[in-house]
């Protein structure tokens, strides 16, 4: 694998370069300005990411650079837009939170941007080494972000836990990559795919073990059961805005990478990874549905809910069809807005130190009917009740599953979704049926209000008219290959 000078097309990496340069520039800016100037850093970060989204949207066609190590195509661009949205929306809504919790140094935004950069690189990776680089950049940034709240011991615990378990996962992934390298003699996706396609590669046990370990490593990153143990603790301990992007962004990046790994690289050994991913899906849905039932903390509940959602999304991967891929993209998009919306409400509640326990929402419908209604709609959407967008996500996933002939998996999926509906309803119940508690009030910052409103509108509109969302994802999937 030789890299020729001619094969460097920086134009394909424009968004990533932009993010990297701006992140460093903002680091310098924040060093020079005083605390009072951190608002500048904050809004500059937001503006930068929005600019990056525009740059990504301009990109067309597909291409690769650095000897095929870095790939860009319609699907990766779509996923990168999601990654950017998953980062910028929590940032916009968390200005107040950052200030009140003394996280206002400016480095916070820079680290967040590096995490985003890592995610974008993952989405574009064309080889295992670059995949690992992106993943580590993202993960390391998240370890730091999780521990950012200096006024909370839980936050430090979360960071440490995330770091230790995440490192184990990275180690496993690296181990798997090295085995694949041992079998193939190369780490580029093209070479590995070509090798696995041969009878030799098909029967290679070393490569098979590598496939398993890579899946385990990625399973950790998306918090799929049984590799989900870290998620509830880390979600709970991390600062709320960080939890917001932690529950969305790494998953999008990992699924973008999994598209390429599973559908391209490991396609010849589908018979091996298919059952594994299926098992991950069933376990995730099960753990997400049943463990969520007993939670009293909203963040932990959302952690289990996200494990469940990952289970549904994995069904789309198991389907191994263009419809499945589209289903994954649709579901991730909708999941992004549902999650960000809920966290936006939690952040607005935080000014009083409330919002993390489900009981904090007691009787919210009586005091803040509009907010309670919005929150209830997010919950119904997460439960997959039509006519809200969450249903459209589930519909596209289950449709792909049934089309691929996996009816039992679809039946398991819908039954688990009915179980998990119980805990979403519990939140609605607390807000609507229980008597209100003493003084509790939400304080929406302008940004928070914007994000929650936007998410709410999208959740409602896409539930009834998902045509444009479907069209975008469909055109991206069609351009794949």
């Amino acid at each position: 694998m030789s890299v020729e000078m001619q094969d460097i097309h920086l134009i394909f990496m424009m968004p990533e370069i932009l993010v990297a340069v701006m992140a460093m520039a903002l680091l310098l800016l924040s060093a020079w300005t005083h605390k009072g100037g951190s608002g500048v850093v904050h809004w500059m970060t937001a503006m930068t990411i929005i600019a990056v989204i525009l740059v990504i949207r301009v990109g067309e066609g597909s291409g690769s650079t650095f000897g095929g190590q870095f790939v860009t195509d319609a699907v990766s661009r779509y996923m990168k837009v999601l990654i950017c949205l998953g980062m910028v929306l929590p940032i916009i809504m968390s200005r107040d939170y950052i200030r009140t919790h003394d996280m206002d140094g400016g480095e916070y935004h820079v680290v967040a941007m590096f995490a985003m950069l890592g995610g974008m690189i993952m989405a574009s990776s064309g080889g295992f080494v670059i995949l690992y680089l992106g993943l580590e950049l993202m993960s390391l940034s998240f370890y730091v972000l999780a521990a950012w709240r200096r006024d909370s011991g839980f936050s430090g615990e979360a960071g440490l836990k995330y770091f230790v378990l995440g490192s184990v996962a990275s180690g496993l992934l690296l181990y798997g990559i090295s085995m694949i390298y041992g079998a193939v003699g190369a780490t580029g996706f093209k070479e590995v795919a070509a090798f696995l396609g041969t009878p030799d590669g098909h029967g290679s046990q070393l490569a098979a073990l590598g496939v398993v370990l890579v899946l385990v490593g990625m399973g950790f990153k998306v918090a799929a059961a049984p590799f989900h143990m870290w998620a509830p603790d880390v979600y709970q301990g991390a600062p709320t805005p960080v939890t917001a992007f932690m529950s969305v962004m790494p998953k999008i990046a990992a699924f973008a990478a999994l598209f390429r790994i599973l559908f391209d690289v490991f396609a010849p050994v589908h018979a091996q990874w298919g059952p594994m991913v299926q098992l991950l899906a069933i376990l995730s849905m099960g753990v997400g549905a049943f463990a969520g039932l007993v939670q009293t903390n909203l963040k932990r509940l959302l952690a289990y809910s996200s494990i469940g959602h990952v289970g549904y999304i994995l069904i789309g991967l198991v389907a191994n069809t263009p419809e499945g891929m589209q289903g994954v993209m649709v579901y991730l998009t909708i999941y992004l807005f549902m999650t960000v919306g809920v966290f936006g409400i939690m952040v607005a509640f935080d000014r009083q130190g409330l919002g993390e326990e489900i009981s904090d929402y007691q009787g919210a419908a009586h005091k803040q009917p509009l907010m309670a209604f919005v929150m209830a709609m997010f919950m119904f959407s997460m439960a997959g009740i039509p006519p809200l967008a969450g249903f459209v996500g589930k519909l596209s996933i289950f449709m792909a599953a049934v089309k691929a002939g996996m009816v039992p998996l679809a039946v398991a999926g819908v039954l688990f979704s009915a179980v998990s509906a119980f805990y979403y309803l519990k939140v609605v119940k607390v807000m609507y049926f229980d008597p209100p508690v003493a003084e509790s009030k939400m304080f929406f910052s302008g940004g928070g209000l914007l994000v929650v409103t936007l998410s709410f509108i999208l959740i409602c509109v896409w539930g009834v008219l998902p045509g444009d969302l479907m069209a975008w994802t469909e055109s991206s999937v069609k351009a794949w290959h």
Partner: protein
Amino acid sequence: MLSLVTFLPLFGALVIAVGVHNRPALARWAALVVSGVTFLLSLLLLEGFDPGSHAFQFLEESPWLPGYGLYYRMGVDGISLPFVLLTTFLTPVCILSSWESVQKYVKEYMVAFLALETFVVGVFCALDFILFYILWEAMLIPMFLIIGVWGGPNRIYAALKFFLYTLVGSVLMLVAVLAMGIKAGTFSIPALMDHPFSLVFQIWVFLGLFASFSVKVPMWPVHTWLPDAHVEAPTAGSVILAGILLKMGAYGFLRFSIPMLPDATRVFVPLIFGLSLVAIVYTALVALMQKDLKKLIAYSSVSHMGFVTIGLFTLNEQGVEGGILQMINHGIVAGALFLLVGVVYDRLHTREIARFGGLVHRMPVYALIFMVFTMASVGLPGTNGFVGEFLILLGAYLASKGAAVVATTGVVLGAAYMLWMYKRVVFGEIHDGVSALLDVSKRELILFVPLLILVFWIGFYPKPFLEMFHVSVQHLLHQASVVKVGAMVVK
């Protein structure tokens, strides 16, 4: 036109939600006007409907998600139109009945009711299976809130139970719908009716649909959510629940299971007969022992719906027409009975049968109205209940003599629990607290008059009602007699 009838209530709900603040009276009037106008519009549907054709009428179609083969398709035939009318008719009645009994969050209550009306009417009009499913499920949200916010002391339990029972059934239906739609390449309901499926496939899909519809009807043994939901729901919630939501399950059988899966239907007829007979006899016995008025009527609903499912699955003209008519009857009579319970509950704040007695001395008009509906529920000749039950028993006798005999005991038991209940509540010595009661008010009387008219109209001259769906039922029976499996072989 159909969309207008369907979505006018939702539009009204949005306007009320946004436009009305702190003025409960305005919210009430606005909701009443919206639902009243909707009813009048639905009468125009009846005017333009051609009962001589079994085809779907007032068709509307526009692409929704063409990539997935999903369309927004609406239309009614003789089977769905009566239910549309029943819904638009009962909703204003419900709103009027909540005039005084609902005092907290009036605006939200009205919004929930109007949204519910949209979803239910939509369910009956949808001609795309996914659209049907969406509306079917969406209905859970307002109903969940109606029971949970405005319900009785144990409302949270009841609301959750209602929601989860229905949801578990519904999601299984979703898989069945997807399997069927993907196999046939379309989700259009008329097209699916003509599409041949293999027997094994039909049986699996039938079970998936059955999971959902049997919970909704509800059939024994998945009926246990109903008494809880009925007892805890506010009066109008019970009326809607008994009057319309239960019919959705039976309508599902009529619209989907029987015409689309005729071979599987024939396989499952004995099972459904068995479950229905258990429901008729067992829940009638349970009803006999109830101390709570609403619970008694709730169990009687399960029993009556057992008659309906038997009628539908006799697969002969008398049985199916009787089943449909009985659904309408039950909507009217059970709705009225719940309203009657609501009337005394508003005054005494109890539903315990033992706390009543001697109502006839203080509330003679009430006692008279109550008697009419009790008799209609029992199936006295001259009331609507008689026509429906008679047709069903006739059909059942043609289909299976044994089933007809067992079902008839249900009629006897029905008479027993209803009359005994009536005796304990209305006659006897005047109970404490009853002595100060006032008779029905003018508003309450307005509620009952149209219901009374219908009871006798259907009782004495059911022809216009039967004619509405006669041709459609014949077409349905033709569909049900098709051997789709055979069509597969020919293909």
